[in-house]
């Protein structure tokens, strides 16, 4: 394997990880505040849908990204209302939202345009080469000639980590996920905080979906997230509920997905179906290893009831 192949593999890893990373960071916010992020797939798909439709209708990709965050947040608010306010089961609600968005996006794609799905063609945004860094031989051009949204995904980790560890709001959010009764006794409203965390997480997941629709494919197709939300969910666990860990988790899955496609040409005596399983086998193996030492937010999955 020569240097160019390694560079190509690294670039593909970054590309594949970017939508996962947005979704994982969004899910992390929700889980830190005590709500399982099972609906992440639906929020991503909602973002892909609203992003593609608005970029198509208004002819502006930047606006598409903004409205994708809004679409994800809207889906999140549905989840937030059901789980935090009405104390519905988090797993069942999350799965229900995933199915709802899958059907609703396909339906609206046709319904909004008079029964005929429009042909959506968008021009993906161009790249922003970073000065200095993009001139590093071999790795520079592949890693530092990305579109703005890719840098945003990776840079987001810094403020998010600071927020969760250094700010009062972030510590309160975590307290609600660990011990909502204590947070309540200290004068905070756990229900409201959980709702805000889910909605904000939805906005991030929506951006992740928009990366697929606006950056990668330049169109919207039915069910285009195709299970990536669940991979993001696994990345959160592999990363042990920290933003930096989530980056590592997403990069690992991105790397194995990129490797799987390239490994098919090595002439290994293995069926392509086995190759396609690689990222998922790895997810299972890592999760099995992590679960022994995993420490979930203590109050995750438990609805808060005001006494």
């Amino acid at each position: 394997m020569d240097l160019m192949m390694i560079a190509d593999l690294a670039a593909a890893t970054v590309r594949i990880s970017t939508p996962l990373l947005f979704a994982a960071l969004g899910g992390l916010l929700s889980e830190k505040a005590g709500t399982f992020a099972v609906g992440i797939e639906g929020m991503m798909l909602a973002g892909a849908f609203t992003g593609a439709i608005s970029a198509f209708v208004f002819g502006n990709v930047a606006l598409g990204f903004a409205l994708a965050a809004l679409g994800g947040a809207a889906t999140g608010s549905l989840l937030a209302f059901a789980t935090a306010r009405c104390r519905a089961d988090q797993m069942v609600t999350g799965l229900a939202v995933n199915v709802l968005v899958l059907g609703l996006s396909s339906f609206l794609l046709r319904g909004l345009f008079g029964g005929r799905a429009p042909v959506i063609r968008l021009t993906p945004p161009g790249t922003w080469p970073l000065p200095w860094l993009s001139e590093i031989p071999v790795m520079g051009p592949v890693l530092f000639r990305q579109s703005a949204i890719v840098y945003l995904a990776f840079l987001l980790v810094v403020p998010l980590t600071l927020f969760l560890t250094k700010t009062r709001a972030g510590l309160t959010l975590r307290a609600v996920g660990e011990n909502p009764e204590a947070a309540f006794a200290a004068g905070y409203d756990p229900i409201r905080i959980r709702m805000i965390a889910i909605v904000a997480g939805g906005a991030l997941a929506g951006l992740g979906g928009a990366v697929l629709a606006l950056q990668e494919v330049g169109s919207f197709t039915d069910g285009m997230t195709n299970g990536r939300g669940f991979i993001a969910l696994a990345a959160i666990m592999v990363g042990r509920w920290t933003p930096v860990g989530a980056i590592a988790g997403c990069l690992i899955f991105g790397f194995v997905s990129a490797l799987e496609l390239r490994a098919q040409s090595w002439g290994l005596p293995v069926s392509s179906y086995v190759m396609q399983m690689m990222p998922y086998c790895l997810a299972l193996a890592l999760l099995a290893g992590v679960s022994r030492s995993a420490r979930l937010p203590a109050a995750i999955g438990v609805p808060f009831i005001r006494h």
Partner: protein
Amino acid sequence: MSVLTKDSPTSRSRAAFVGLFGLCAAIFAGPAGAAEKAAFLLPGSINDQSWNAQGYQGAEKLKAVGWDVAYTENVQVADMVEALRDYARKDYKVVVGHTGRFLSAMERIGPDFPKTLFIVGSGSAGAGTNVTSIDYDNTQFGFMMGVLAARMSRTGKIGSVNSLEGLPNVVAQVGGFRKGAKSVRPDIEVKVIYIKSMEDAAEAKEAALSLIAGGADFISGKLNAGQTGIIQAAKEKGVYANGRSFGHSEIAPDAVLTNIVEKWSDMYSQTAQEQAKSGGVGGKYVLYGLNTPGSTGAELAYNATQPLNPAVPASVANELDALKGKFKDGSLKIAVNREDAHGGI
């Protein structure tokens, strides 16, 4: 469920008039029977501008030649048996299921309705006396695409992104592609990648990008919604690709050299009319290609008027025409096996 022939709220007098007219027509027309009835079951919406829209064209075509046609959209796998049985009970002579997934449902209920011909679009086998699969000759079109790719490649490396390794029509097209390319440039490198889903455009794009990074400058493939991903990758990296509809040419007018446009309307109407006229179509696996009467099954088309992108030199266009001629008169026959369509190089 939408049905073309559903009763419209006609007034009673109009119904009486139609009845009278029908009676007269029956008297004057002599012993000619009622119109033949055909039903179409589609897995998605007829407005999808792709697979389902193409299938529905078959219904339109039969209607145009006087058939009584009904259709049902969005038939899910779990509902296939009931939907098929429903039409068969109403004495539809031909019932079409527009995806290979109908095959097992039809195999199950075929024996219960021996007078009905069940047609599986893009199926892979006939069954019993009345279940027939039809498809276009993927091998021929894959072969021609391979020749085109080999002639247009500057790097001597070409690739193909597909899904469902081992599925008969995938084996036929991918194997044909590899054989076609090697037939004109034996030293060419043909790299094939299989991805998880026919519908995942982002994954298809990544697969295409990995082929391009390896030096490939023509990317082929047989995917549904995923085809867009191949074309997007080719467009961004400035290499060639093939599509499956005119819409694909419009996404990347410079990258797409041609499309394999499938002619389901011809294939369905041809098979149904053959059954009505002489019967004996049941239980077969029918392939329409350049050498079959009634329909060529598919065609290479860049847009409504041109078969190939203007970037393809005349010498290559002529070579493809000569190939078509050889397929047509039967002097060239290509057989492929699973090994020809293997993943990797």
